[in-house]
């Protein structure tokens, strides 16, 4: 009975489908037992610790709300591990405001629970990743207090932002600003890069750029910016208007100023040569000869002096039928034969060409040793006859002795 029980307990392990464990970052077919494995537990604790530190940063801002300057927006992004989404502080006036709101939301709570149910053996650390509503309320109150305090400095900020020449749209919308706090841009679409980004990147090495901002032309930067030459400012002088005068940028003017019209595109495309990348195998037969010949032909085309390619005695690389050895050897042998033929042909009187050919052939045959045709006898046959002969003699001798 006990044996049966143990046997029944020892079920063959179920073949689970392969799943991807986000924490361990690999595929496994252990199924739901995976989360109890010690390795997974270790990785999970490390994983959660990392996220805890991020939340700690956000909590800092929860206690000390501060303004979020547009330049620092990109630095303020958080990836929420449980919800699998990126929280970008677009258009928020206070640091981490969106993150705080997100962490307080009920959806986030649900996701935390789901995550821990799937990956974590225990569900006790849920509160670490939540921000309670009370805290959020406190934070909001602090924010408004801050806001009121800085009402007076609002204009200062305005002027500050208006001198932010990188921010074109803000510049245009200064009149439209209603709130104290400026939303630089709410554009989510990304415009294509129209100018060379090199100068842009150099100038913005220290300052973060706006994700959805257009590229800034070098001419619009102040001359004092690092890495820029004063050349650029001279170029912009000719244009009808520039940033300082508040003119719209050239790529926004309809059609005429628009660089990306069809003709340009086709021109650019034409310029890119359609190279048939058919590089011939350098190890192919006669590659070196082919390259040399191509160069020679090009020279001929250009009309340069052509060196005599082939004289009357040129012969191609050929391996003859009855020669063994390299092809050079066969060519040499042929030339030797030819010389012999010439010599013998001169000695004979002039006859019809066919006869001459026949004769030269026959003479060439005769000049060499006559080929002796013998019947083929194998080695074994020779040995056998020898042995049989020997044996007979031996028998005779033996017979004689005894």
């Amino acid at each position, binding site marked *: 009975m006990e044996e049966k029980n143990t046997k029944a307990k020892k079920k063959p392990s179920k073949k689970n489908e392969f799943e991807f464990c986000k924490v361990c970052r690999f595929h496994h077919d252990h199924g739901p037992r995976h989360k109890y494995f010690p390795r997974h537990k270790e990785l999970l604790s490390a994983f959660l610790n990392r996220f805890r530190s991020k939340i700690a940063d956000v909590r800092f801002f929860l206690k000390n709300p501060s303004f979020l300057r547009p330049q620092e927006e990109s630095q303020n992004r958080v990836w929420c591990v449980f919800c699998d989404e990126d929280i970008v502080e677009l258009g928020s006036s206070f640091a981490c405001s969106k993150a705080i709101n997100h962490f307080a939301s009920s959806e986030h709570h649900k996701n935390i629970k789901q995550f821990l149910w799937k990956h974590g053996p225990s569900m006790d650390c849920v509160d670490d990743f939540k921000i309670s509503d009370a805290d959020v309320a406190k934070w909001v109150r602090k924010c408004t207090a801050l806001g009121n305090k800085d009402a007076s400095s609002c204009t200062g900020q305005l002027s500050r932002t208006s001198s932010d020449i990188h921010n074109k749209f803000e510049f245009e919308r200064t009149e439209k600003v209603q709130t104290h706090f400026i939303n630089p841009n709410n554009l989510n679409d990304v415009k294509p890069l129209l100018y060379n980004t090199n100068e842009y990147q150099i100038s913005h090495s220290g300052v973060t750029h706006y994700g959805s901002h257009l590229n800034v032309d070098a001419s619009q930067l102040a001359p004092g910016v690092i890495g820029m030459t004063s050349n650029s400012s001279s170029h912009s002088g000719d244009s009808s208007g520039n940033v300082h005068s508040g003119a719209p940028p050239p790529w926004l003017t309809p059609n005429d100023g628009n660089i990306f019209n069809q003709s340009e595109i086709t021109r650019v495309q034409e310029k890119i040569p359609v190279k048939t990348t058919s590089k*011939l*195998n350098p*190890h*192919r*037969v*006669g*590659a070196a*000869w*082919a390259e040399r*010949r*191509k160069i020679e*032909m090009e020279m001929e085309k250009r009309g340069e002096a052509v060196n005599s*390619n*082939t004289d*009357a005695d*040129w*012969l*191609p*690389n*050929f*391996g*003859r*039928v*009855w020669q063994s050895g390299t*092809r050079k050897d066969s060519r040499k042998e*042929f030339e030797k*034969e*030819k010389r012999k033929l010439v010599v013998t042909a001169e000695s004979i009187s002039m006859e019809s*060409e066919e006869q001459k*050919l026949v004769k030269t052939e026959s003479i060439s*045959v005769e000049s060499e040793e006559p*080929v002796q*045709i013998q019947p083929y006898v194998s080695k074994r046959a020779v040995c056998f006859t020898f042995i049989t002969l020997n044996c007979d003699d031996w028998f005779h001798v033996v017979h004689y002795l005894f």
Partner: protein
Amino acid sequence: KKSSSRFHSVWGLYILKRQIRNHREKMESVLLPTLTKKEEIDRIINNTIDKVLVLRFGRISDENCLLLDDILEKSARDVSKFATVALVDVDSDQVQVYVNYFDITLFPSTVFFFNAHHMKLDSGTADHTKWVGKFHEKQDFIDVVEVIFRGAMKGKLIVHCPLPPERIPKYQLLYKDV
């Protein structure tokens, strides 16, 4: 045997007539160049770069040669991207140098070159340096040329013939008329 030879001669004549008719009707047929001088052969060998050069040595009076020529002419266009075909008239005097150099004793013989290097073809016969006789059909010729091209591009000087042995003409190779 007699009947077969008669049939072949009749067939050869038929081919000739058809060719003439075709030329008269000016159908699109690429005339293969016929070479009669050593300089011409040298020139064509030197000017064919990165393509297989097929040189047929034969005489027009021969039936086998006519059949072979027919196949060559028809498939010349198909292989034109990687091969050039030329005919050499063996009865011309200046060409005899090559006839001797290439050890051509049986006609028609086809010799293959790539980048002025001679390409050998192992078809199970005694002579690997050339193709002796005619091809059974166009596709056989195209296959052989393709195999040669592929081998040459890989750097092989000798390639194995893709044809089954029944399609390869058999012949006896004699050493100095022995």
